[in-house]
């Protein structure tokens, strides 16, 4: 810095008071400007996070809005939008000629007859509750099943198919409602089977109406009670009593929905009495259907099912979040199983055993893995790893078992090794030795696997597994575990590495001075002190594994299975979002459930990250105390 030139008067000019003040003002202004900008950025981040969460909530919450309906009088002048909806087409019966071909029991009077969706079975029923199942292709067989649809003491008053003609709802004069499916028994014989009751009504059922296009129905009872049900829930979605409707003069005898399910018409002898404006957008979603087993139409038993759309009319969307949550946790679990031991051992090795130039090079190399785009890892996993693993599964399992064994052997006979190999651990030579050991163990694993498959598993482990009842799918959780483990490894490694490297030198040096050996220091000092940091690294790795999309999407079959079998596939929350968001119609139940999936994912990763941070803060406090 050059001194300011003296002026002609010979005195250096100091900044005058005014100038100084101006500068101070300027500085203060800049100061507060920066302060403002920084806090604005901080606040923006927090607000954005909150806004995302609120937006997700606002899209998902309408799912749980209870159904409502209100009675509206008929308009004086008929409007086109308010016409009586036509009778549903599925009520059409089979012709009398067809019926005559069947050898029916003589005493059987037919009050109701219904044909299934595939036009192969007909159900005949009468008011006393007797029913008879006919198979249209076998007229001579007569009733292939006779059963009672009521408890014999009460009489059947109403019966209807739900949309899609796969399940039957019956109502009797004691107010009971039951659901029936046509199911094949063990011998392949089709039977009308009782599935479940719905909550009993207070009076005799007068009429049932199925919602077109989805599996809901409305019930009218003799006491003027109206209720709306959905086939997967036994409790009504909405119910109300209209006592004056029970009065004889105004009593409706039929209910009918319009095509969009927002009007429920009350009719008496085909004449409209009034209608209900119904608000029931998402009847198929409730906490129960999302988290519990549900008995869907035509299924043999209740299950957790995710099959969101069928691209067909009358599709009953199946939205169980259980398979997706299990899939996400399963993938994360196996990925952690692969990544955590490798990453932590690698971090321990680099910090405690490796000498300096090698140490930083190796850790840089591992951290480089994080730069791999996950789409490439997923691609390799699907195209190369999955088929390779299918062929060499046994070899991999043996490799995992043999390697530690060989290490123990090597350790045992270390002293026998030539002196130049016994140099300090962490040299290039020991690294090479270990690589050699890995190669040896791989070769042994491959050789043994070929022998074992030939002698113990009839030539193929997969066939043997399938005989034991274990399904082996090519794109399974093991493939995901290995591929995603590879992706998570650098995260866990670098954080564990930092945690271990931060341990104050005086601790280890002190221990050395007291005569501790390397392993004692690792075991008694390094690990306990760094434990919170390592735990935090694991939590962050877990959160990365839960949020990972591309690897799971590509390396699995995306089949929504609810189990933890390592040899079967899975479908994760993330992959579901990636696959299904483009197809979901805006504001449909499917769309909103996907938002729910996003919230779930948000909660998972948020919890993991928060826990990791809390643990890390503890580590920092511990270290400060040590200093």
């Amino acid at each position, binding site marked *: 810095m050059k001194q300011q030139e003296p002026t002609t008067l010979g005195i250096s000019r100091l900044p005058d008071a005014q100038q100084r003040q101006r500068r101070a003002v300027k500085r203060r202004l800049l100061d507060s400007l920066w302060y403002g900008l920084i806090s604005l950025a901080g606040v923006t981040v927090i607000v954005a996070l909150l806004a995302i969460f609120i937006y997700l909530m606002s899209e998902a919450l309408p799912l749980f809005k209870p159904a409502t309906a209100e009675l509206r009088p008929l308009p004086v002048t008929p409007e086109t939008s308010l016409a009586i909806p036509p009778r549903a087409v599925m009520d059409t019966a089979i012709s009398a000629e067809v019926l005559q071909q069947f050898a029916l029991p003589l005493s059987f009077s037919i009050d109701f007859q219904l044909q299934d969706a*595939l036009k192969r079975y007909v159900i005949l029923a009468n008011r006393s509750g007797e029913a008879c199942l006919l198979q249209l292709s076998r007229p001579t067989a007569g009733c292939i099943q006779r059963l009672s649809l009521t408890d014999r003491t009460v009489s059947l008053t109403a019966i209807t198919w739900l949309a*899609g003609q*796969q399940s039957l709802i019956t109502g009797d004069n004691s107010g009971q409602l039951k659901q029936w499916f046509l*199911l*094949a028994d063990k011998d*392949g014989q089709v039977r009308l089977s009782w599935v479940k009751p719905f909550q009993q009504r207070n009076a005799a059922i007068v009429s049932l109406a199925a919602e077109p*296009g989805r599996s809901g129905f409305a019930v009218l009872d003799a006491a003027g009670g109206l209720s709306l049900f959905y086939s997967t829930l036994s409790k009504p979605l909405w119910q109300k009593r209209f006592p004056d409707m029970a009065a004889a003069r105004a009593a409706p005898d039929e209910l009918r929905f319009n*095509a*969009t399910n927002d009007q429920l018409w009350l009719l008496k002898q085909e004449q409209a009495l009034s209608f209900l404006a119904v608000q029931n957008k998402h009847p198929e979603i409730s906490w129960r259907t999302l988290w519990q087993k549900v008995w*869907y139409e*035509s*299924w*043999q038993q209740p299950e957790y*099912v995710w*099959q*969101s*759309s*069928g*691209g*067909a*009319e009358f599709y009953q969307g*199946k939205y169980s979040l259980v398979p997706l949550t299990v899939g996400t946790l399963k993938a994360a679990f196996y990925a952690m199983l692969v990544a955590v031991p490798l990453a932590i051992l690698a971090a321990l090795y680099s910090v405690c055993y490796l000498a300096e130039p090698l140490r930083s*090079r190796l850790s*840089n190399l591992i951290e*480089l893995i994080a*730069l791999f*785009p996950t*789409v*490439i890892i997923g*691609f390799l996993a*699907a195209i190369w790893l*999955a*088929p390779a693993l*299918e062929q060499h599964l046994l070899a991999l399992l043996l490799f995992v078992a043999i390697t530690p064994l060989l290490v123990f052997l090597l350790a045992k006979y270390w002293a026998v090794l030539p002196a130049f190999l016994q140099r300090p651990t962490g040299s290039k030579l020991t690294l090479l030795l270990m690589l050699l050991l890995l190669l040896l163990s791989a070769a042994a694993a491959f050789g043994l696997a070929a022998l074992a498959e030939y002698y113990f598993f009839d*030539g*193929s482990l*997969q*066939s043997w597994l*399938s*005989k034991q009842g274990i*399904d*082996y*799918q*090519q*794109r399974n959780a093991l493939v995901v575990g290995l591929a995603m483990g590879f992706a998570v490894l650098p995260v866990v490694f670098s954080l564990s590495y930092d945690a271990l490297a931060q341990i104050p030198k005086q601790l280890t040096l002190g221990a050395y001075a007291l005569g501790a050996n390397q392993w004692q220091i690792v075991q008694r000092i390094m690990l306990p002190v760094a434990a919170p940091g390592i735990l935090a690294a694991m939590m962050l790795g877990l959160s990365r594994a839960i949020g990972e999309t591309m690897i799971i*999407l590509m390396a*699995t*079959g*995306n*089949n*929504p*299975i609810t189990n933890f079998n390592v040899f*079967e*596939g899975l479908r994760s929350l993330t992959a579901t979002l990636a*696959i*299904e968001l*483009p*197809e979901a*119609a*805006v504001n449909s139940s499917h769309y909103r459930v996907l938002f729910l999936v996003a919230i779930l994912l948000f909660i998972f990763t948020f919890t993991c990250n928060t826990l990791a941070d809390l643990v890390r803060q503890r580590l920092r406090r511990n270290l400060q105390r040590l200093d």
Partner: protein
Amino acid sequence: MQFSRFSVLGLLACALLLPGYVSAGQQAAADFAEQEYPALSSPALSKLTGTLSSNGSDTLHNMMMLWRREFVAKHPQLNIQIQSSGSATAPVALIEGTASFGPMSRPMIMAEQRRFRNRFGYDAYAVPVALDMLALYVHQDNPLQQISMAELEGVYAQNRRCSYHPAVTLWGDLGLTGAWQFRPLAVYGRNPASGTYAFFRQRALCNDDFQNKVQQLPGAAAVVRAVSLSVNGLGYSGFGQQIAGVKMLAVSKDPESAAILPSAEHALSGAYPLARLLYIYVNKPPAQLLPAAEREFMRFILSAKGQQLLLSDGLVPIPEELVSQISQELGL
């Protein structure tokens, strides 16, 4: 230094691997005579400009690319964007107005049409553009030659309501012996957004649910590739998707009738049970013509040349009568 060398390698790997996965890598040998798509009389139409976009069926993806390539060669100032993540995305895109073409491998269902009608006041207009056959693929080493529709149901369906065929889990259940007898099936299919999924579900499963173990792959080519990599694999995909390493199965309608391999002739006669029409949905108000560029593209697709291009992708041109009827309705 080390760092940068590695990142360059990574980028190289990206550049090499990614396109191979994304596009099915199918090159069509398309050299067709010029006169089959007659030049336009109106000079105004010969310089179409702007951007058109298409969003929908993955089955039609290769075809849309082919049609675009040929069409854009004629109208270089026109840009056509193609996105193909499944038929179910087409109605969504048409309703939101983000696409002017909605290729679909199945007809729109009532709920989709209703949503469209609520928005525009009329139905979306379906233009049938091709005839497609779904083929069943197995690994090339698989000795199986044919499969019946009932057996397919046994393989794929959860409740098997169509034929009540017993569940098929091992290749032995399909009649194979020896090493294959106890080999389990690995079953592949499409994701629910796909029209192929919906069509297969309707035709082979009587609208039953798929089993949970059916692996869902996002893409027609991905299914075939998965089968080629898995010895015990079985998957359904378009006829045109065949690659080395897989074998097509002959399909029989019922146990009595003969099993037939998919072919153009059997698709047209209706003998092959898994044949279907492919559509392009457009937003055409009744009694109005489509905008010039869109109309011109449809005219090209339905022209003799556009239809001939189908053959190179394993699809079948639609019958003449259907073409002339549609052309009339569209005012081509």
